[in-house]
């Protein structure tokens, strides 16, 4: 059984620069996956590849078991909200829904209506708040009753309150449709509420991939007196070491309990864990901004 989204050694190069490289991952059936990583890690590129807007330079990508560049049917079953939630600005809410109905074979108007709640149908898209606009884009994506939902930086333009509201609508839609969801985001604040799996992209591919529980279970903060670092029983990898004065704090990936009494062992929250990983990701040297039309190296 193939996963709704599956990539093998996927890579995409823009004019000599790799936006995504050696990316192998799968988003299993009916899970919500948080796709995260620093700017330029290739999150948006990956989603654009998944909806066939881009063609891979190397490797393969399969969406709902099919090649997105060859199969329009596969895209028809994917709900995609691109960065900045593009919609026709001159359309009203009602016209946007009519657009979605007219351009999709499968369209669940009742579900879209339900997700939109009390939003006035006669308002023009250009007059919507960022939160309302995101909500409309999401309703359009979920109204297709997709097997796979891809959201590109849905929280980027939203204030915390709107982000939380968006998440509620999304989760409600997920509960209704049972879709697999991939959320590309560098905002990790709310990621744990929504996501069961986390994939962290970095330069050179997938840096972290696992369920939230696995990640929380396998990482610990060790605090102790500053000392030369040797092997610590139960520690697989030291992700980050920080010292202040005589104290040393390690973020470690464990492969068993850390019983060494000279360390104080504490669990770590997901947000802090992800931020620590992102900080360790090697990034390419900064370069002048790309022309704005190539904005998918998000």
């Amino acid at each position, binding site marked *: 059984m193939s996963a709704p989204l599956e990539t093998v050694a996927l890579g995409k190069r823009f004019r000599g620069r790799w936006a995504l490289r050696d990316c192998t991952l799968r988003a299993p059936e009916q899970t919500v996956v948080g796709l995260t990583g620093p700017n330029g890690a290739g999150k948006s590129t990956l989603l654009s590849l998944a909806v066939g*807007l881009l063609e891979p330079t190397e490797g393969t990508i399969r969406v709902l078991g099919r090649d997105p560049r060859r199969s329009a049917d596969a895209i028809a079953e994917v709900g995609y909200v691109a960065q900045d939630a593009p919609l026709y600005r001159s359309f009203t809410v009602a016209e946007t829904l*009519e657009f979605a109905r007219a351009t999709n074979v499968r369209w669940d108007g009742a579900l879209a209506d339900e997700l939109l709640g009390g939003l006035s149908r006669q308002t023009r898209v250009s007059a919507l708040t960022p939160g309302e606009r995101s909500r409309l884009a999401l309703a359009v994506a979920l109204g297709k009753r997709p097997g796979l939902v891809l959201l590109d930086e849905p929280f980027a333009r939203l204030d915390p309150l709107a982000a939380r509201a968006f998440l509620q609508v999304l989760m409600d839609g997920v509960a209704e449709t049972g879709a697999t969801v991939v959320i590309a985001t560098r905002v990790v604040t709310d990621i744990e509420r929504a996501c069961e799996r986390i994939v962290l992209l970095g330069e050179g591919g997938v840096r972290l991939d696992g369920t939230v529980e696995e990640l929380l279970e396998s990482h610990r903060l060790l605090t102790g007196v500053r000392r030369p670092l040797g092997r610590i029983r139960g520690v697989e990898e030291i992700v980050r070491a920080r010292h202040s004065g005589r104290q040393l704090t390690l973020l470690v990936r464990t492969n068993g309990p850390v019983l060494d009494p000279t360390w104080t062992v504490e669990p770590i929250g997901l947000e802090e864990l992800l931020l620590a990983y992102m900080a360790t990701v090697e990034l390419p040297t900064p370069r002048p901004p790309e022309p704005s039309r190539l904005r998918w190296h998000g």
Partner: protein
Amino acid sequence: MAWVIWRQHRLQLLAVGGLVLLVAVAAVATALPVRAAYHRQALSSCLPPALRPGCELIVGHFRSEFAARAAVARWLILLPGLAGVLIGAPLLAREFEHGTYRLAWTQGISRQRWLLSKTALLGLAVVAASLALAGVAMWWREPFDHVDGRMSPAAFDVEGIVVPAYALFALAVGILAGLVLRRTLAALSVAAAAFVAVRLGVEKLLRPRYLPPLHQVASGLSAPTRSRGWVLDNALVDTLGRKITTGREDLAVLHAQRASVDPQQYFSSLGWRRVITFQPPDRFWVFQGIEAAIFVALAAVVLLAAVALVRRRPA
């Protein structure tokens, strides 16, 4: 999908419709005096083969009286190309500019089908509008065409079935330019320039050769003042059929005058003749058919390129 296309392009379509209406109203208003004069002066009795004395004067008067109007009507030549480019160029370029191609191309319709549906419907609208324009132009130019024929570009370019063919080609070029350049303004300019270049190229290089032109020989200094065909060339040739340059002609006239000889007689004595090369008026519909076919074929090729590109090109 038809609703979507109408909703997205209704402003342009309404503008084109309004333009056609405006032209029609202006045409009716300006044509009535022309038609009145045509009948008052009984111009039809001056048209070949029925020539009567004084015709030169009557026709000349009619021409000069309405020359300004006919000149203004020549601007109609711009409209089909303009309509095609104005609708074609933004079709894709605006989607790129606003990022909405990421919405449009990730719904349940493949982008080739999306492009083809749009092109088909908008093409239909553009064809309908330009047919209406051509109809108006033909009605308006009727008196002029009776006098001067409709083979020369002033009439040929705004009448008949070439008009929708031009519009269709302009639409296709606009679409392709929008796809390649992704900027409305740039696409508009490039498409307009390309359209004009091809249009003029065909008119100047190909159209004279659709069928071998006819020749008419007239002895004497000047050509017959009136021909209802499309005069391609009007040259003085010597006995061997070689063209005489205007420089030599002037020199010969000067030479005759010094010798107090009538230049026309002098030319005849040299065996010089005036040869008019022209396409006769009865080839109008044949030429229209050929030229329309050329532009429809060009439009099809450009469109196919656009469809292939939109399929292949990473967006």
